């Protein structure tokens, strides 16, 4: 199994508080991704990274920011959490930048914002 660790695995917090989710990989893969999954929806890309300090927005990036200061760590921050950001968040990694190279996913972080 690809070495991907997401922390925390579960978090409950209140509206308006900042939240940071961490994704750590031991595979030295260049590409990292943050998705959210909501009931009845597939995985929607929030942000992705194509190298240290190189990040870009995905399709649902509003309200989220990311940082990647080291190859192995990709952080997702909700500056001021809202109830609409209650979701399951998945981190993924990929060795290459072409579409046929599969992504390897962490086991997710279940985030509840009350």
């Amino acid at each position, binding site marked *: 199994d690809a070495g991907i660790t997401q922390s925390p695995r579960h978090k409950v917090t209140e509206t308006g508080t900042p939240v940071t989710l961490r994704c750590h990989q031991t595979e030295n893969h260049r590409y990292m991704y943050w*998705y959210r999954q909501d009931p009845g929806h*597939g*995985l929607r890309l929030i942000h*992705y990274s194509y190298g240290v300090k190189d990040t870009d927005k995905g399709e649902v990036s509003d309200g989220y920011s990311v940082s990647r200061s080291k190859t192995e760590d990709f952080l997702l921050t909700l500056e001021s959490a809202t109830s609409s950001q209650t979701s399951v968040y998945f981190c993924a990694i990929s060795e290459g*930048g*072409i579409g*046929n190279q599969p*992504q390897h*996913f962490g086991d*997710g972080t279940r985030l509840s914002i009350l």
Partner: protein
Amino acid sequence: DQQVKQNSPSLSVQEGRISILNCDYTNSMFDYFLWYKKYPAEGPTFLISISSIKDKNEDGRFTVFLNKSAKHLSLHIVPSQPGDSAVYFCAAGGNTNAGKSTFGDGTTLTVKP
């Protein structure tokens, strides 16, 4: 507009029979298509992929068929086993977009013993 669609939210089949999961897409620029499988409380895992220049790819019990003219692909599982019960996601990607994939909403497959 959703570029990758899985129109069947769920599918139930008997053990030993064939499972066929379908996926439609709208963007003719996709170069690759992938299927992922997801169990509850786990992340998705890669199952099988196919290039847009092929029409079939097989890996054991799993076969993916691609019909480019119809912008349609399907995943066949033969024979189906109870352990195949999971959510299956179809995904599509290109060669020039940092490996990003666009995912469908998923189909929940239940294989009954």
